[in-house]
């Protein structure tokens, strides 16, 4: 199988997954007790108002009929209007998704920048004080909940020292980098810890491999050995782990966005679930599914790039 048909196959595999997600989220949202109207109309609405509003929104139709309408609209590129916010879901997602994507990517980059060099230091200085310190700090980070790290960073670096703004998003690329530094660090820290531990173990394993001994015996420069032979091979499992955890980052974004007052989709998701805002829940879940699938495909491609045996398998 050549590289392109491999990619095509992976893309095609996404379609059924996507459809299953679509059906599941549609049904599950409606199985939750309560409905958008009890949430949105508040406690003072009379029964007649609820009935009328349900009819206006088509929520009194059988669920299968509702699904067909949803499907029809979906293929026209229309995800419906938010019941609570009264604006099109596509507009909401387009407004907010870039924020969350920025935050997630930023977090992923920070995590990689932290994890890769430190993993090398820890592995090459195994069992020294440096290794213990690095592992200790990350262990501490792993055992603290995301919102707690976030609040501590905010209190210390934001409110006390005033190095960073307390929450918000900023208005241009430079400001985004500045405003989102603490949230991205918060969000990326757990991932960095996981990556660091994995990469350190992988480097230690690769360092034992015969081809590394061989490279050393050939008299190659240590930097070349580390960069070309050790890192590339040690990264294989770490890349997979990285890809798998990016899905988790989007989950973590929900909490981080709330703590740091960032107007991304994470917070929108929470609000829409509590408000039973079906069209928004559906639209967001589908977008998340699409994004996670995309990351998995990219991971597979990168994985294949690093380990050519996979393509022919």
């Amino acid at each position, binding site marked *: 199988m050549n590289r392109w048909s491999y990619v095509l196959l992976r893309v095609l595999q996404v379609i059924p997954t996507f459809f299953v997600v679509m059906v599941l989220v549609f049904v599950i949202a409606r199985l939750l007790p309560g409905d958008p109207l009890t949430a949105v109309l508040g406690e003072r609405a*009379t029964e007649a*108002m609820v009935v009328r509003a349900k009819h206006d929104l088509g929520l009194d139709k059988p669920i299968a009929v509702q699904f067909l309408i949803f499907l029809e609209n979906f293929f026209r590129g229309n995800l419906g209007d938010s019941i609570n*916010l009264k*604006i099109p879901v596509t507009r909401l997602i387009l407004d*907010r998704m870039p924020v969350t994507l920025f935050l997630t990517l930023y977090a992923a980059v920070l995590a990689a920048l932290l994890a890769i060099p430190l993993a090398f230091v820890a592995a090459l200085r195994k069992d020294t004080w440096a290794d213990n310190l690095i592992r200790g700090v990350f262990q501490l980070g792993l055992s603290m909940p995301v919102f707690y790290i976030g609040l501590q960073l905010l209190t210390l670096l*934001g409110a006390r020292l005033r190095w960073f703004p*307390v929450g918000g998003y900023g208005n241009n690329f430079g400001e985004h980098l500045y405003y989102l530094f603490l949230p991205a660090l918060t969000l990326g820290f757990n991932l960095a810890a996981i990556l660091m531990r994995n990469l350190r173990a992988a480097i230690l394993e690769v360092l034992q491999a015969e081809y590394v001994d061989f490279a050393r015996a050939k008299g190659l420069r240590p930097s070349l050995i580390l960069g070309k032979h050790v890192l590339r091979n040690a990264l294989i499992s770490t890349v997979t782990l990285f890809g798998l955890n990016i899905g988790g980052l989007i989950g973590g974004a929900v909490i981080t966005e709330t*703590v740091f007052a960032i107007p991304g989709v994470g917070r929108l998701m929470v609000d829409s679930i509590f*408000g039973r805002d079906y069209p928004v829940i559906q639209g967001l879940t589908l977008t998340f599914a699409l994004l996670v699938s995309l990351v998995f495909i990219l991971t597979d491609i990168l994985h294949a790039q690093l380990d050519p045996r996979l393509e022919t398998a």
Partner: protein
Amino acid sequence: MGKLVRFGLVLLALVACFASAAPKRGGTMVYGRYADSLFLDPVLNDANVDIWILLNIYDTLLAPTPDGKSVKPNLATRYSLSRDGKTMTLVLRPGVKFSDGSPLTPQDVKFSLDRAKDPNNGAWNSLIASIDTVNVSGSNSIVLNLKYPDPSLPAALATFNTAILPQKQFMAMPGAKDEDKAKAFAEHPIGTGPFILKEWKKGSSMTLVRNPYYWGKDENGIQLPYLDELRFEIIPDDNTRILKLQSGELDGAEFIPLARVAELKANANLNMALFPSTEVDSVTMNNRPKLNDGTPNPLSNVLVRQALNYATDKEAIIKIVTFGLGKPSRSYMSSATPLFAAQNGYPYNLDKARQLLKQAGYDKGFDLSTMIVSGNADQTAIASALQQMWTPLGIKLRIDQFDSATNRSKYRANDFQMRLSKWTDDIADPSEITSYFAIYKNVESLHSGFQNTQLENLFDQSQRETAYVKRAVLYQQIQKIYWDQAPIIFLYEAPYPVALQKYVKGFIQIPLGNNIFVNTYLEK
């Protein structure tokens, strides 16, 4: 010479005093809100996040006074009632313009009131159900013909849902139905209020700027509002909202958790304000003989309900939940509601509770359950306190946690035994809270199933009684009956906690909850 110099100095000092006392015009105020608005339409909105800021954009004919107990002139400079109380004439303020520069006309008022009273429109039309027809009279008057005399009408004309919108601009919006037009209009609302919506990033921030056409002036004749710009930032997390205030990124923040009020009071840069509110917190009891699943319900017995009121240590709950900032309820309505009449009774008394339970045949106690909203710290604290307080009576209280949508749908289906409730008035009149708490036909008395013929008759009378004193007497009787029948457990009233930087002046949140920024200025 010396005298002249001294006189000059005194004069200078006086001038300096006045200069610093006069409100400063200009500047941007950044205010942290716990949640964003949803729908800025006066008639079709459903939530406090809209209601509490609508009146910065739109004006009503009359306006609530700062104490929330009466009304003052607004878009109407005066109103008069006919002798039979069935016709109200309002004279419009001359020269008022909408924020797009177009003049306010009586036709706009007729359009807005007709829209607000349409029974097919929104949740609030019942507040002006007494209006039969709205007629334009001459070039600057409006005549309301009423189906019956309505003592709450002036208050209703000061309530957000009767705000005045420009007819032409509204009708020019796309869409066939009123709701579609309202959706489009609310994206860029046009009103006669002090501010104009400039930008709204839903869920993130909302920017209002000064309406240059605003009619209001302060006592020195200076054009209101003072602020150039008012920006709301949406920060749902309480800690972050407070941190942003402490770091100076916000000029004010609403909904400070009561647990942190003392700490912020001690901060020299902040003014920790506790505005009197109409908030009442209570436990709604299901008064029906049987619960939805068919089990017999001891709470249908008035003696049991009274016993629980005696067995509830309100002072302790006030300490635990409001950190001493609340005060015990003395009626179902708050003491800030007009015609509130303080009731006596239900001091914490376990012996009395025991005696009443014995009389009711429950001296061995019974099982009870209450719903709370999961993750709600206040409700958890109240329910756990009740659980402990009632254990000596043999009452086992089970606490069921549901998320708010589930909680509400169970409430709506009468599927609960007890439930925690928080209420604030929307109108400066006791009729709204009474019709929800005590009158069966609206929402089955907060879905408690409570129904009392004598109370309902008195309420019907009070709804047509325009003589203030007579109406007050009727409300005394209504509150006494409700108190004795105890369909709820009366807990406490709590203030609105708002923290402002010391340099923020002239901001108020009135007891109805409305945030009033028209007189706000920054002294820095």
